């Protein structure tokens, strides 16, 4: 079949089952856009900033497990994508990003809107390509989709020069198979290693499952619950692992780490065998390495990425492969074991050190809003967050029971991630309640996407927990920087505002309710605790994109907290 580079791309998207593409056009990608609206092409969602295209593709990928796709132009289009690529890379999210590039002959000449895309994206992508000839294009596309969503998933960039988009391939055929001799991820797991893992678990008196994003899917959840129940192993999850193990399960210890529950951290401190599944011993989990899980005799680490194993913590039983393939084999080798005392101990910690906060009748506590929403939604929602205090409160107070229902930037910690990611999730699940729980600071980083949401009829609900400041940084300033609140106040305190700036209902800009209206969304506001529930109910009932703003206690802090670089023994406060 005769096809241009641009047509080949469209055909590849179809063959790869891509149902939606997020993007923004420009001169160097105009040939692709010229065929992007042809019949049979995937749905195209026009964002208002390329970063949002990347996050939306990422949100779509996290919610579905499928590869997210975005298309942007060269130069500034490609650089605007950087944060989204780095976000997806840190959290191992499958994504294919197409960037337009100046014509091949102009590459390297500092041409208009030229930037070295393969150069700058190298450290923030799993792999990248510059397509030099249309002959290479079918193979590159096939490889890109394969690499993005196999092994340890990640973003792949295809830099696509304008002349290659236009070039004609006489005998185009999309490859059916892919074989990359330098890329053969091992998935099955070595049987001897799995046997050693079973032995380590068998001899443990206090084993603990520690589950991360690598196992956050439906297949693994079922296996993890079976493993936990068969061998009586409590389970803690990382931030990205939330939902991988149902938090309503009696063995669930919920999230561990810096802002994890006390009981999860106690369980980790006291366990004698860590069974890590698709988790990477991130510094926000381990804290001070020398004080991490000091009673451990063994660490079993199941992970598809060998370089994640023994990177910061020496592992005694490494098992390389796909958790979904390895867990069944492990289950088969393990006999049912009773560990009543250990289970009772863990449940005692849970009962005696619950997450706590004080809600009075004067000021709204952010945790209260999250708990109320959880109740009203009966826990059935896709919850997306930005980054900061609200993210940690959501992780703590929402009980996640299903995989892929908590979407959040964990590794990179990208403020502004949540709202565009929620749009991606909403496209995948139009009938589900999709909520972006946001802080006032984070939401302002990508609020231009309100246009996208309304124009595309993506009825995402945005809960803005407005504390008038950059709360997480403010918390660190309060606790570790002698209350020097430098640069964290979002209100115009101490500044003069323009004399003709219209007066506002509350001393805060923007007025989120009016902002919503300007974009065609609906704005709601609650200022008192008794308004929280009705506001949330109205937010869900309203058939529109909704910003529901809650004026919350400014000085509320996230607890428990293990300060950066400290150990469990330095954990601060269970009570706000």
């Amino acid at each position: 079949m005769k096809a241009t580079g641009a047509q080949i791309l469209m055909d590849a998207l179809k063959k790869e089952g891509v149902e939606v593409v997020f993007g923004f056009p420009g001169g160097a990608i105009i040939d692709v856009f010229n065929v992007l609206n042809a019949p049979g092409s995937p749905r195209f969602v026009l964002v208002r900033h390329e970063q949002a295209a990347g996050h939306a593709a990422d949100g779509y990928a996290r919610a579905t497990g499928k590869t997210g796709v975005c298309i942007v132009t060269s130069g500034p289009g490609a650089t605007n994508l950087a944060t989204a690529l780095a976000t997806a890379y840190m959290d191992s999210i499958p994504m294919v990003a197409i960037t337009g590039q100046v014509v091949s002959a102009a590459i390297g000449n500092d041409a208009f809107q030229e930037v070295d895309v393969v150069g700058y994206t190298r450290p923030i992508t799993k792999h990248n390509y510059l397509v030099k000839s249309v002959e290479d294009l079918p193979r590159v596309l096939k490889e890109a989709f394969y690499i993005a969503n196999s092994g340890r998933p990640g973003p792949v960039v295809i830099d696509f020069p304008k002349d290659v988009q236009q070039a004609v391939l006489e005998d185009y055929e999309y490859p059916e198979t892919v074989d990359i001799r330098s890329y053969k991820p091992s998935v099955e797991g070595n049987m001897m290693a799995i046997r050693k893992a079973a032995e380590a678990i068998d001899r443990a008196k206090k084993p603990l499952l520690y589950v991360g994003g690598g196992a956050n899917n439906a297949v693994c959840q079922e296996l993890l619950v079976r493993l936990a129940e068969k061998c009586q192993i409590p389970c803690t999850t990382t931030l990205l692992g939330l939902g991988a193990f149902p938090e309503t399960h009696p063995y669930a210890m919920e999230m561990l780490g810096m802002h994890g529950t006390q009981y999860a951290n106690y369980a980790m401190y006291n366990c004698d065998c860590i069974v890590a599944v698709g988790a990477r011993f991130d510094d926000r989990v381990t804290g001070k390495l020398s004080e991490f899980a000091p009673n451990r005799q063994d660490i079993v680490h199941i992970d598809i990425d060998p370089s994640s194993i023994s990177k910061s913590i020496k592992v005694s039983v490494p098992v390389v492969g796909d958790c979904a393939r390895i867990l069944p084999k492990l289950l088969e080798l393990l006999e049912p074991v009773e560990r009543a005392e250990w289970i009772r101990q863990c449940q005692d910690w849970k009962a005696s050190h619950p997450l706590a906060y004080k809600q009075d009748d004067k000021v709204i506590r952010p945790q209260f809003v999250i708990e109320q929403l959880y109740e009203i939604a009966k826990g059935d929602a896709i919850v997306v967050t930005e980054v900061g205090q609200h993210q940690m409160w959501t992780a703590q107070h929402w009980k996640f029971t299903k995989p892929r229902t908590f979407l959040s930037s964990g590794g990179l910690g990208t403020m502004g991630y949540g709202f565009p990611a929620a749009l991606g999730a909403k496209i995948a699940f139009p009938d589900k309640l999709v909520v972006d729980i946001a802080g006032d600071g984070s939401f302002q980083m990508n609020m231009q996407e309100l246009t996208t949401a309304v124009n595309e009829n993506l009825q995402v609900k945005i809960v803005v927990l407005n504390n008038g400041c950059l709360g997480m940084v403010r918390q660190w300033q309060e606790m570790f920087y002698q209350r020097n609140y430098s640069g964290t106040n979002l209100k115009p305190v101490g500044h003069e505002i323009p004399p003709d700036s219209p007066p506002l209902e509350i001393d805060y800009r923007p007025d989120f309710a009016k902002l919503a209206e300007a974009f065609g969304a609906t704005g709601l506001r609650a200022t008192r605790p008794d308004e929280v529930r009705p506001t949330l109910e109205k937010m869900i009932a309203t058939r529109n994109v909704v910003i529901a703003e809650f004026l919350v206690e400014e000085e509320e802090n996230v607890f428990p907290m293990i300060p950066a670089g400290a150990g469990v023994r330095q954990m601060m406060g269970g009570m706000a």
Partner: protein
Amino acid sequence: MRHVISVLVENQFGVLTRIAGMFSSRGFNIDSLAVGETTDPTISRITVVSHGDDQVIEQIIKQLRKLVDVIRVQDLTGESHIERELVLIKVACNKGNRAEIMEIASIFRANIVDVSAGSLVIEAVGAERKIDAMLDLLKPFGVLETARTGSVGLSRGPNALKV
């Protein structure tokens, strides 16, 4: 500890950047790096000399293997291997000491590849330590400049890195 790591990679543009970039972005050391095509023109062999404790070297090897364009990685240090480096050394000389310099070169089985009234260029091949030893002996005469290729290495015996 010093390690000689042999890496087979796809012979494509940008591969060297990926390797060098991985080292720099993760804070690993490169003591030397040598690249050349293999008998299969689609494959290049990169020899990297690095140093670090066992954990660092383990990470270097794993991170190399993780790169999509890397086909095989072998740590030669753990096994019996040969290592060679080529160096060109320009030494200042005069009538009085030329013979003495040439004698040093011949002890190291090095060749004289350029002669002028005031200089000699010596071409030497050997393991890094041999080159270093020769340079030490030549320094008193005045080493004007040097060019070193960095080490390349192969394992001894019939075993070869297979693709």
